């Protein structure tokens, strides 16, 4: 399976006459984009704003951040199962607008949509220095849906609008001279050429069943993970639209942008190309609701890694809080018992910042632990010159001076591995 990523550099976004890429400037015809989004009759409107790096701007609450990407004809579809037909993602050519993002805000308040944690996009000031998102040019999108629709239907419409907007923008890159291109592929358990190198797999959680997903929530290939057991995925499927985050962000942070630019998968590819290791594949899994499900999922994941991929070693990441934490650790422990070396990525689960409570597990062999951030670092954010809110509740407080923790600023903590936070035990 081969995926060619064609990069078009974007250093500016402006509204203008015709949607196009003019040099490094993405010009967007707002009316044309809105008309495209409003083809979905659940929408009655779409608010669009442009935000640049360094601007005195705050936006929230963030539903998702997506890199504009569009598939060239002949490859797999755009976001299969959500936008395109269901087919294996990760094949053919994908045009991307590097330096740009579609940032989608929730149109409903946390209470209305059953969420707990709200995150903001901060474009300048102390918190922004630690988020990759502050370096991007954003098209901010709030889809306005018919209020009489059930909340899950409104969120489903918002999800569709989010990926449609990202694909619409990236189509402007097609036919333009790209800045660079790179081909991802030719990895897998039976691919020759890397014999003798450590065979390394990635096991990533994509959801935690602690929250029951909506019936029409689209997490993997357009479905909500009901009845799901671990899936064997080619790494390109993660990068190319097979997976999006849940409607309700869980502890830690996950965005579509860092599936498309998955820090662990990209790193494994680079080391594969550098002949440091043999990247044999990935497993996508979920955290369970009960012990039997946990055991089923963890054993199945471990079996894919050991017997399906023939891996010697695996890296594991989680999605969310305590239950996922345990599921990841149990999977790693099973792998260790099968002779597969592991390293796991955890967030801080202690609450009181004490090591004794942080890990939740004590498997002596699961001893390689990387930390992807807690909520310890706090900033007092200054009043924002410009505040872009998706809902009325957020609008009332967004611009004001406020204290925020690292986990509330999108991109600062991230369970896909994009965070620069590390723990120091003192």
């Amino acid at each position, binding site marked *: 399976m081969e995926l060619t990523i064609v990069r078009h550099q974007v250093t500016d976004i402006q509204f203008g006459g015709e949607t196009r890429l003019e040099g490094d400037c993405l010009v967007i015809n707002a009316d044309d984009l809105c008309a495209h989004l409003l083809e979905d009759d659940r929408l009655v409107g779409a608010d669009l704003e442009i935000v640049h790096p360094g601007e005195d701007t705050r936006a929230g609450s963030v539903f998702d951040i997506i890199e504009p990407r569009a598939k060239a004809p002949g490859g797999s579809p755009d976001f299969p199962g959500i936008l395109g037909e269901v087919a294996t993602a990760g094949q053919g050519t994908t045009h991307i607008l590097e330096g740009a993002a579609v940032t989608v805000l929730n149109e409903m308040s946390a209470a209305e949509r059953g969420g707990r944690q709200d995150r903001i996009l901060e474009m300048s000031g102390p918190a922004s220095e630690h988020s990759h998102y502050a370096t991007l040019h954003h098209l901010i999108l709030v889809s306005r849906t018919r209020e009489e629709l059930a909340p899950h239907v409104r969120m489903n419409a918002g999800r569709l609008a989010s990926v449609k907007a990202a694909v619409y923008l990236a189509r402007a890159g097609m036919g333009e001279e790209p800045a660079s291109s790179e081909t991802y592929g030719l990895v897998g358990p039976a691919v020759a050429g890397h014999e003798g190198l*450590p065979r*390394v797999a990635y096991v990533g959680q994509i959801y935690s*069943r*602690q*929250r*029951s997903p909506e019936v029409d929530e689209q997490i993997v290939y357009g479905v909500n993970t009901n009845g799901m057991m671990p899936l064997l995925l080619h790494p390109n499927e993660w990068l190319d639209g097979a997976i999006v985050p849940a409607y309700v962000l869980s502890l830690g942070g996950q965005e579509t942008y860092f599936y498309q630019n*998955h*820090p*662990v998968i*990209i*790193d494994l590819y680079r*080391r594969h190309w550098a002949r*440091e290791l043999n990247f044999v594949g990935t497993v996508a899994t979920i955290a369970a*609701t009960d012990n039997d499900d946990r055991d089923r999922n963890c054993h199945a994941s471990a079996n894919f890694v050991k017997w399906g991929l023939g891996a*010697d*070693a695996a*890296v594991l*990441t989680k999605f969310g*809080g*305590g*239950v996922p934490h345990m599921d990841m650790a149990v999977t790693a422990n099973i792998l260790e018992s099968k002779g597969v*070396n*592991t*390293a796991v*990525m*955890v967030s*801080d689960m*202690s*609450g*009181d*910042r*004490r*090591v*004794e*409570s*942080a*890990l939740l597990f*004590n498997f*002596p062999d699961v*001893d*390689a*632990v*990387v*930390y*992807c951030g*807690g909520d*310890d*670092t706090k900033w007092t954010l200054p009043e924002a010159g410009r505040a872009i809110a998706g809902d009325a509740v957020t609008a009332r407080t967004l611009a004001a001076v406020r204290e925020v923790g690292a986990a509330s600023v999108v991109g600062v903590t*991230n369970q*896909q*591995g*994009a*965070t*620069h*936070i*590390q*723990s*120091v*035990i*003192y």
Partner: protein
Amino acid sequence: MRIVHYINQFFAGVGGEEAAGAPLEEKEGAVGPGRLLEQLMGGDAQVVSTLVCGDNHAVENQDAVVAAVVEKVRAAKADLFVAGPCFEAGRYGMISGAACVAVEAELGIPAMTGMHVENPGVDLYREGLYIVDSGKSAAEMKGVMGKIVAIAQKRLKGEPIGKPGEAGYLARGLILDAFVEKKAGHRLVDMLMAKVAGEPFETEMPVSSFQATPMPAAIKDISKSKVMIITDGGLVPRGNPDKIVGMAATTWGTYSIEGRDHLKGKDYEISHGGYDQRFVEQDPDRLVPLDALRELEREGAIGELHNEFISTSGLANPLSNTRRMGKEMVEKVRAEGVNAVILTST
């Protein structure tokens, strides 16, 4: 710079084990290792007073000795308090740790000590103190005192202390976030590759080691026992009268089940955000199995069901919290004459 130094009878040259009963005594100026302390501190630093106490006397009269130490440090108008270093001497470590904690808490000045990692004073006091890793041998006095002085000076100037391994103190077991150049995803693969190659790697989160909880003795005759249910699944009467928070709860509640044969969903709510609550909302007996226990009570399989259950939320609840709540619950259980508890979790 005024320093008060606490040492035991041995380091004061009073005597060995035979002098361990010696009471607390104050001597003017530096004694024994205090001279090295004064010299390494440099400048105008002066050990104005040395407090000497026999180790047995100190631990047998710990509260009184600690209180007396605090008062003498206060009277000396000290800027810094140093105890030890104590190396492997367990009683010396325990009194030094206790004195340092009390001095810091009551006088607000830095207090420093040093111990071998296996000194029992370490387990008791490491979280609250900077305890320099002294190793076992008192022959290393100069190096150990040097580390105590270096950290003390940083603290007096308000400078960052640095990591345990670098500054030479025993990790306190507390977590701080730092920002680093490499992304977590990159560090993850780095660490895996080091592990695969058999090279040393430094985990970012040490694996916890929990004290084993011994299995309690079996109940001889459950048919004569008074049984109680305790849950951490967050089930509370509708309205959450005790305002038990759903995450890292610091309180617990006691709720009557008197005269009832089962719990109805309409009467309860769940204060716990960590599990899919629908099945308990439908039927709280799934979490607090009142229906089954009433049956067993009627059959005589259990002696009696206590007419209340205890509930709290176990979600993301740190051990420091749960240990305390556990002890409080034990008091309640004992007071009610309960001799068997069923713990249900989610």
